[in-house]
């Protein structure tokens, strides 16, 4: 095991009114792509989701990223070589390590869907009526590219390029009323 110490700052956290945003530095990502004509795969028993969808089973979740391509996420695995673990799970698939590519923010509302949606409408140009639980979309936010996953009516997760995390945090704060 390497003795290099990864860069870390205290995870960003903010609560304003009913909405809380908590950075999740301990989630691992790897993208999974299949060759054309390859049979469907089910890493860790997970049925990979359809276009625009997200699924979760315990600590493992997946969302659709493109034709025959998904992002697989593992909670509490940020320090592991998750891409390697996934590659063993799905031999023959194209696996690309993505853990450090993204800053991840979990957003939740203690007041139901409305406060969360009031926050999201100030951040992203998404028709929220068509963005219910289980949906995931790649979109622009604060002039950057990222993903938004609607996990529940009152919960979503935002992924943005990690290099711009500090700018994104400002945008998140701005979007909180």
């Amino acid at each position, binding site marked *: 095991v390497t003795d*290099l110490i990864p860069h870390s700052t205290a995870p960003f956290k903010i609560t304003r009114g009913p909405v809380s945003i908590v950075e999740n530095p301990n989630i691992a990502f790897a993208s999974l*792509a299949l060759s054309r004509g390859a049979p469907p795969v089910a890493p860790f028993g997970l049925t990979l989701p359809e276009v625009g969808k997200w699924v979760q089973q315990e600590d493992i979740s997946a969302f659709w990223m493109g034709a025959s391509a998904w992002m697989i996420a593992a909670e509490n695995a940020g320090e592991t070589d998750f891409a390697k673990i996934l590659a063993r799970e799905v031999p023959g698939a*194209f696996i690309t390590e993505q853990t450090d590519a993204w800053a991840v923010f979990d957003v939740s509302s203690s007041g139901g869907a409305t406060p969360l949606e009031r926050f999201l409408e100030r951040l*992203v*140009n*998404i028709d929220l009526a068509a963005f219910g639980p289980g949906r995931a979309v790649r979109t622009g936010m604060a002039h950057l590219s990222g993903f938004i996953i609607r996990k529940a009516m009152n919960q979503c997760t935002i992924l943005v390029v990690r*290099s711009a995390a500090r700018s994104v945090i400002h945008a998140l704060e701005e979007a909180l009323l």
Partner: protein
Amino acid sequence: MPRLSGGQIDRSKTLTFTFNGQRHFGHPGDTLASALLANGVRLVGRSFKYHRPRGIFTAGSEEPNALVTLGEDAQAEPNTRATVVELTDGLVARSQNHVGPLSFDLLAVNDLVSPLLAAGFYYKTFMWPRAFWERLYEPAIRRAAGLGRLSMKPDPAQYHKGFLHCDLLVIGGGAAGLTAALTAGRAGARVILADEDFQLGGRLLTQNENFAGQTALEWLEPVEAELAGLPNIRVLRRTTVFGTYDHGIFGAVENAGTKTLWRITAKRSVLAAGATERHVPFANNDRPGVMLASAIQAYANRWAVSPAERVAIFTTNDDGHRVAAGLLAKGVQIAGVVDPRKDAKALGDYPLQSGALVIDTRGRRGLTHVRTTQGWLEAGALGIAGGWNPNLHLASHHRARPRWSEAHAAFLPADNDLPPGMVVAGAAAGIGGTASAMRSGAESALRALIELGLKAQMPDLPNAEDIGSCRQTIWHVPGKKRAWVDFQNDVTVKDITLAHQENLTAVEHLKRWTTLGMATDQGKTANVTALAIMSELTGKGIPATGTTIYRPPYTPVPLGVLGGGNTGPHFRPRRLTPSHDWAQAQGAVFVEVGPWMRAQYFPRPGETTWRQTVDREVLATRAGVGICDVTTLGKVDVKGRDAGLFLDRLYANPMASLKVGMVRYGLMLREDGHVYDDGTCARLSEQHYVVTTTTAQAGPVYRHMEFVRQCLCPELDVHLISTTDAWAQVSIAGPKARSLLERIVDGVDLSNTAFPFMACAELTVAGGLRARLFRISFSGELAYELAVPARFGGALMARLMELGADLNVTPYGTEALGVMRIEKGHAAGNELNGQTTALMLGMGKMVSSKKDAIGAVMSRREVLMEDRRRLVGLVPVNPSDPITAGAHLFTKDDHQETSTDAGWISSACFSPHVGSAIGLGFLQDGDSRMGEEIVAANPLEGVQTRVRVVSAHFIDPEGERLRD
């Protein structure tokens, strides 16, 4: 005068505000304008050009006169219409455009010399001396004429932005808008109802209409409650929809304390923006107290205030009579109603002058008397009712021309050319009666809902009346004195006549020459009248004269709102490299490179100039070893069965033939054959390549690659994924690079034979951390690029510094990186500027003739093949002379002009290795002019430098160092 009875103000609470420092009082529910009138303030500003006293003219966003500055110091917001400012406690307002006190404006002298200041006067007057225009005349005119002034301080206000989506956007919350929203809301559609006012109801609030059995307000109350209770309806008060854009997108500003810019995407829209009353120009019609009749009605009914105890009305239709009757009922004296119709009938007990016109007024700082064709009337206010102009602006923002309706004597929205998905309802469509407006609102919503496949029902509508209105259309009262058409810009009937005489008869010319319809009100109370007068003069008729183009914004939008709060350090997002915090701790100076902040150089104590630092970093790297964070270079993983084939099409040179474990320099062309980008392409396994791009082009190249994959080569089985952010990448360069690297790499033979120049591998470092290693060189030295997961970037830099202390390892920034690549003659962004070809770069042979690739065929075009400019190196003949990037190259003794231009300098720096400035440039026949002395000219600064043409490789031209 004291407040009238009734009104929708909360008299139980008193609000204090100041106007020009004077304390006044009002109530919640007041606008600044209604509160000023209630406090007896009639004079609120000075006119644009003549500095004439001006008062409140309207009760809405069309206001041309009552422009005030709100707030103080940096908070000051100029040109705010007092008629739409919701009164708040402590509000501070000031009048604009006067020198000295408002009541004694020194620039009112302009009014005395008004014959000299007719439309376009400055085009004719200030002709000589020519130099005086910019220095004297224009600044003086600008000082004298104008609206509010900016504080010139940073705006401390906070602005927000956001995005909304709906099935139906209803613009306007009056009679038509409310029934539209109600119909759609009950049907379950997602509705946004936006109104610029802080109260819903539009003209229902001001007309005091009685429906059968209830007042308009009694009808309004449960409707508002129902709208508030429907979860699928979003009511946005204080929200002006200011623009209609493509694809059902609307811009809106919500002003709820802080301002929010909303971008609304609506499947359908109902425009129910109402109509603006017209005035009729007559002599001296601009005195404070002269107002739209509907405005006087609004102030009396909604705000319980009359602008004067005695009011006269000048009307061309029945609306003015209704206003008079209503005022009478409120206890306001009616001095008389002047009506040009001979058969006009009074609707109450007031003096009527039928078959009469208003021909003049009196009253220095406010109206005192009105002169009609039948004598003088004593009145402190005059309401003008000249008919209605539908507010069709938002239906014309895509350039549709409104159509003239003789029956309405008004322009109506172009039915057959509305923005897709829009229906116009109510007064905005020329349907002015309350009952028909309500019906048209509901019907418009039904139409929209049917198109959306939603079932809906007509709501029960109140038994409102449609009061017909006979009218006689009068565009102006002829006379010799000045009669104002556009109050905001001081444009009179005379100015329009002059424009006609000068043959500026087209409406667009009329607008530009007289400034009619410009500035904050955009001629909402002036344009139609002006073009009607012009059509009288030309005899062409109104439809043939037409309107000017309607453009967003409908009402002024502060620029800060459009910025949406992205100011200062948040003007745009910043990307930080993985070693940013480490570099900051080392005292690095940073530079913006596209969205990235990169370490530019690392100053050490005692170094007084950046050049000292950069020279040291360059020399230390070339003598020992230097490290630099190069994460910002774009990285794209290319995977799949057809990865090689895909890259063969993308790059001008072959990539499918690249051996696993090797890297190749790659050149991408644009479709037109010019060079697009360069970088390296590494093959990590049979079906896995890693492409690098330049920092600047990382985004565009990735997009281009996706376009090629998805659109040009959809048959290929290949996946792309950007890994720029996933990996931190560090360049380790210099003769001691291998020695340093061997100390951190886990058990891999890095000898020249085992890991030669252009080798690559996946390995581990620092005791098991996964990494990628590429033996590539930008500096011309023995060099490697080592990538680790991004979060380890800073730790890797620190570890390399620690392990290489005895090797004198030196961190270097982008400046030293640039110097070393110029010394080596490597092309970068400056050379790949979109105008250069592979031939010009001396890389013509890289464009493979054995395969096809994007841009390959077009690169063989005659015009590109014949371009004889080639990349060369340049040194000054006098070693102390500088070399300036951007300078143009000329053959010695040639006359310097475009036709003799022989090329340009693309990059320049001081080279500590050469000991003088050096440059790279493209020179006509450059490859055969080695040793020639030429001239680098910088005509902008009058600089001529003698330079000598040399090889672009200032160090190690044979490339021995990087293969060592």
